[in-house]
C-alpha cells in the first residue's frame, strides 16, 4: 500500500520497476502486438500506444496510406491493453496488493467500431484509450489515434468488452 502513510514510501526505483515489469508482462503475452510493432509508453498509470511506421502497415501503396485494418488493429490493441492495464493496476497498486503478478486474463472484444477521420500517413502513430465504463462483466472503451497533431486524430474507435472472470473470492 504505497503512499498510505504507514511506513516509509517505497523507493521510486522499486515502484517503477514493478509497474514497468507488470506492463511489459501484459504486452509481451500478445503475439499480434509484436506483429504490428506496437509498444506502450507509461507515465504513472497513463499509457500511450506507439505504432512505428513500417511498409507492411500500408494499404494503398499509391497514396501511400495506412491500411484500415492496421489502423483498426492498432486501436483495438490499445483498447484491450488499456483495459487489461486498468485491471492489473488495481492488483499491483491497489488495496489488495500482495496477490500481485497473477497473470491477468485479457478482456474479449464484443464489438468495435472505427471511425476513419482522415488518411493514415506513412509515419508513426500514437493512441490512447479511455475506459468510459469499467464494469464487472462489460466495459466500454474509447480510443483515439493521431500522428503529427494530437488535436487532429486520424481515427477514433469505441468498443464493448467482456471482462475476464476475477480471481475467486475477490468480489464474489
Amino acid at each position: 500500500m504505497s503512499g498510505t502513510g504507514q511506513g516509509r514510501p517505497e523507493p521510486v526505483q522499486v515502484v517503477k520497476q514493478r509497474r514497468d515489469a507488470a506492463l511489459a508482462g501484459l504486452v509481451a503475452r500478445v503475439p499480434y502486438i509484436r506483429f504490428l510493432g506496437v509498444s506502450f509508453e507509461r507515465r504513472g498509470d497513463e499509457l500511450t500506444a506507439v505504432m512505428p511506421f513500417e511498409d507492411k502497415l500500408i494499404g494503398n501503396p499509391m497514396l501511400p496510406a495506412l491500411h484500415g485494418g492496421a489502423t483498426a488493429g492498432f486501436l483495438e490493441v490499445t483498447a484491450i491493453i488499456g483495459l487489461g492495464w486498468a485491471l492489473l493496476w488495481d492488483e499491483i497498486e491497489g488495496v489488495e496488493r500482495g496477490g500481485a503478478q497473477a497473470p491477468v486474463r485479457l478482456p474479449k472484444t464484443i464489438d468495435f467500431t472505427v471511425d476513419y477521420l482522415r488518411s493514415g500517413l506513412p509515419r508513426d502513430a500514437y493512441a490512447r484509450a479511455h475506459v468510459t465504463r469499467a464494469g464487472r462483466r462489460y466495459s466500454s472503451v474509447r480510443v483515439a489515434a493521431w500522428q503529427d497533431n494530437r488535436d487532429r486524430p486520424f481515427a477514433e474507435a469505441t468498443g464493448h468488452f467482456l471482462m475476464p472472470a476475477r480471481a475467486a473470492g475477490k468480489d464474489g
Partner: protein
Amino acid sequence: MSDTSEFQPSGADGSPAGEDMARVARDFMESLPHAKALNLSLLALGPGTAQFSLPYDAALVGDPDTGVLHGGAVSALLDTACGAAVIMHPEGTEGTATLDLRIDYMRAATPGQRLIARAECYHVTRNVAFARAVALDDDSDRPVASATGAFSFTARQRDGV
C-alpha cells in the same frame, strides 16, 4: 480513409473488362503490403461482392491462453473484403476509402483454422457505398464475426453528359 483507393476496376471507356479486370483486381488486392503481411488471398470477385481468406498464423494470435486470432487481424480481413466489394460495384468509378466499420465478434475463431470473409456492397448512393461482410471458419453455419461499414464512393454518371 484507409484502404484501396486509386484502384480503377473498369476499362478506360468505363466498361468492365471481364477476365482482365478480375486478374488485375486479384494482383492489386494481393499486392497491398498489409494484405501481404497477413497472407490474405483473394478467393472470388463478382459485381459488388468479394471473398478473401486469412490463413491461421501464430503471429496473429491475440489471446495466448487459447491461441485465438486477435480481432485486429479479423478487422483487416473484413475491411479488405468490404473495400473490394465496393470497388467491384458496377456503378462505381473510382477507388474507395473506409469511412467507418463496425465489427461484431460473435465467437472466438477456432485456432488453427483459416478464416474466410464474404463481403457484399448492398447499397450505393452517388457518394456513399454500404457494405457488409461475415467471417467464417470451418463451421460455416456459425459466423465468427460480422462487419458493416460505410465507404466513399463515386457513382458513374448515367448516360450522356
